């Protein structure tokens, strides 16, 4: 992999983010709006209903982390859609750019964009609701890592599906992560799901991340169990996503889809 080509992909999407109001909205507006709404709700739960502060912290923390996961998965796919919408694919893939460099560039720029959104949401939660996520970060790092890895895998898979089925399935960019939200146990524990759904939830790294996060934030310490389950599942999903993406890309070249996608 050549770093100058990875940087070119990063620079291309940094320019797009600067020029495209939709990207700025995605990056900052939604995470901030989410935290604003959840902030008022948890304030009500704390003052009006008398909910324990640690449970309120867990709700706000989960909202921030889900926002991060969702943004990352969406931005990977939208980054690719930007090439399709601007009919730039032929220009891009007639350069020496490899698919690994392209995906690495997308991951880097989306990591930066997600951090801006999460940073803005966290600062708002801190200043408006006195919820400071930053001291929790060291305890949450293992679960953040699993969330980010799963978001990579889903983002790559969604991009692969768009490669194969073109803009007909572009809605997946915004909806795929949402599909997993009910079974990822973001705001409630795994045991609150019906038995048959728990088995599905167990297969998702997001469930292990949010279960582990809750344990850490209510003082139960680090859960190696949830961390390693998350890592193991991520290894499988990541390998599958990369494998499927490469197969789809090669198939697109064989079938001439790369030049017809536009």
């Amino acid at each position, binding site marked *: 992999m050549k770093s*100058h080509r990875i940087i*070119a992909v990063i620079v291309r999407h940094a320019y*797009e983010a600067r020029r*495209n109001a939709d990207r700025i909205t995605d990056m900052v507006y939604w995470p901030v709006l989410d935290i604003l709404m959840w902030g008022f709700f948890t304030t009500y739960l704390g003052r009006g209903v008398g909910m324990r502060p640690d449970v309120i912290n867990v709700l706000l923390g989960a909202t921030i982390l889900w926002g991060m996961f969702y943004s990352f998965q969406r931005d990977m796919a939208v980054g690719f859609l930007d090439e399709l919408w601007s*009919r730039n694919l032929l*220009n891009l893939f*007639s*350069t020496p750019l490899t698919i690994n460099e392209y995906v690495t560039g997308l991951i880097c720029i989306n990591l930066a964009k997600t951090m801006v959104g999460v940073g803005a949401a966290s600062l708002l939660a801190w200043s408006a609701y006195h919820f400071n996520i930053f001291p929790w970060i060291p305890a949450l790092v293992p679960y953040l890592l699993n969330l980010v890895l799963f978001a990579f895998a889903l983002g790559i898979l969604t991009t692969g599906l768009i490669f194969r089925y073109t803009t007909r399935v572009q809605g997946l960019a915004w909806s795929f992560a949402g599909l997993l939200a009910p079974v990822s146990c973001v705001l409630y524990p795994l045991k609150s799901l019906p038995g048959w759904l728990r088995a599905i939830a167990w297969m998702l790294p997001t469930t292990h991340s949010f279960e582990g996060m809750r344990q850490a934030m209510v003082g139960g310490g680090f859960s190696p169990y949830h961390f390693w389950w998350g890592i193991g599942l991520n290894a499988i999903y990541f390998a599958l996503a990369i494998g499927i993406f490469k197969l789809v890309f090669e198939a697109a070249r064989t079938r*001439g889809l790369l*030049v017809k996608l536009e």
Partner: protein
Amino acid sequence: MLVQVENLIKRFGDFTAVDGVSFGIKRGEIMGMLGPNGAGKTTTLQMILGLITPTAGEIRIFGKSMATHREEILDRMNFTSPYVAFPYRMTVQENLTVFARMYGVREPQRRIDEMLERFDIARLRDKPIARLSSGENTRVGLAKAMLNDPDLLLLDEPTAYLDPDIAYQVKEALLEARSDRGMTILYTSHNMSEVERLCDRIVFLNHGRVIAIGSPIEITQAILNEEREAPALEEVFLRVAREARE
């Protein structure tokens, strides 16, 4: 030969788009690729660019196989077509910066300035692509195609949207690149007088097959099957296109 295409075949299901095409291009040569719509020109060009995988056959460029040395080969090549676009919200400068980085161009800003001057679009530097005319867009594409000073340049109807004055400037720039640097160019166009003036040799395709290769006068004589004093590619093209329809 700088480019060697050997028995290239591309099938899409039951349809054979390219059927055993072979030709070579010498270093510093301007090779035209002609043929009616559906002759297989674009598919052949896209296989040379590595955008489509051939069903069979081999493409060797700079003595290396495209199948195994894609990155290395594309690093020394470039391509443009008025039918592909750039991200339309980004300015001309931003787009060229991205591609200069993509090719690892040394002193990218100096090179971008040179290209903007050469194609007379320096005044458009800070304009978003969306606000350019078709002709201006084509010139941005040409500036991008010359950014890395390629050894091999693939041009798909590069003068399609240009007025005669700008088209003339572009042709002069291509001839200059060939004479100064020995740049090799593969060129498709539907403007026959332009091809006659610019191309050293022509590969003529029809129904996915090569029907003639040679200089403009050789192609004229071979396809019209009579002695001629001067090339008459327009006549050749019309004859082939009518026969293809019949």
